């Protein structure tokens, strides 16, 4: 696989990762009334997962320069 193809493949994988992270059953794990770091668990999970996904996207996007 050349570099362009592997970059495309990584982005597709990230999209699929996102679809899994922001779906059942992961959401159900955090859909509880408890708190995580003092904030609602689901709110904390969504923003941490979202930030992590964006970080990975940035790493892939900026790679290969």
């Amino acid at each position, binding site marked *: 696989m050349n570099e362009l193809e592997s*970059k495309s493949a990584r982005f597709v994988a990230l999209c699929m990762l996102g679809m899994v992270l922001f*779906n*059942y059953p992961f959401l*159900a794990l955090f859909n509880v009334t408890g708190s995580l770091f003092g904030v*609602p*668990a689901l709110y904390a999970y969504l923003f941490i997962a*979202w930030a992590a996904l964006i970080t990975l*996207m940035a790493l892939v996007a*900026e790679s290969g320069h």
Partner: protein
Amino acid sequence: MLHETTIVLISFLYLGVLFAIAYYADERADAGRSVIASPYVYSLSLAVYATAWTFYGSVGRAASDGVGFLPIYVGPTLMIALWWVVLRKILRISKQNRITSLADFIASRYGKSALLGGLVTVIAVIGILPYISLQLKAVSSSFTILVQYPEIAMPATIGATSIRQDTALWVALILAAFTIAFGTRHLDAAEHHQGMVAAIAFESLVKLLAFLAVGVFVTFGIYNGFGDLFAHAAAQPKMSAMFAPLEGVAGGYANWVWLTILSMMAIMFLPRQFQVAVIENVDEKHVNKAIWLFPVYMLAINVFVLPIAFGGLLRFPDGSVDADTFVLTLPMAEKQELLALLVFIGGLSAATGMVIVGFAGCDSMNAAT
């Protein structure tokens, strides 16, 4: 003091600044030194996705659904992960075929069918009209609320105003003038509406800063950080139910997934998104940075939505204040005049950005078909 005249003057001053930015950017473009040839301006212009619905409405939704509003902003991130493959391809096709609008693009995929292009245009124009009127309504409602300062009264309880005080009408007229001046001039696909894009990017910055300012004020000014705010909210049964909204106040998981898919489509195919992402793109390389900068923008404008919603519910427990106005009414209730004014300008930015690009997108469709 927040006098009516002051608010009107500052609003017109702000719209004047937009004209100035657009004019300057067009002049620079004519001189061959483009200001929009930057991945940062490109990323900010994409944030026209965040309209007055985002600015005022997200908090309103969060006040009943908890994080149920979030798929609308997370979904695009999933689609943007595919941009490196999909958007770059669309960009190449569009540049090759000198595509000037979404209708043009769809028609060209089906053998340059003028009928199909016309149909897409009609659907887009019909679809966008109520959307635009809701943006203008948000401007006039927020204006009506702000001039009552220090009282907090909902527009519905105030009654009718005269035409002279119909802010929506005046704003619509100014925006129409703006779009004619900067959004519709060039019909050649090789040219871009540089002034419009520069102004939209500036508006995106303003609405983000205004929203973050309220968020920081509510979270760290009224309360001592996220933990304190959420601890107060957790003590109320109504709000603690919103901590786990799925299968509850926000509907089931299927609802969440549908919203995600819908917003994935929206970020690609809303006429205004197609306009800024494809038609106004000046360099394919900008996609590289936009892939993560634009999602960062969306994340930033959403972090404080739930805290503001809870802050509002705690501040106005009797339900007399519409949750859609918390962004504005919370600073007003805390006697923060300048912050309230900044919020009004932020809301104005969110609404006008959508209206300008919406108008311009429809205009290029009409011109092309």
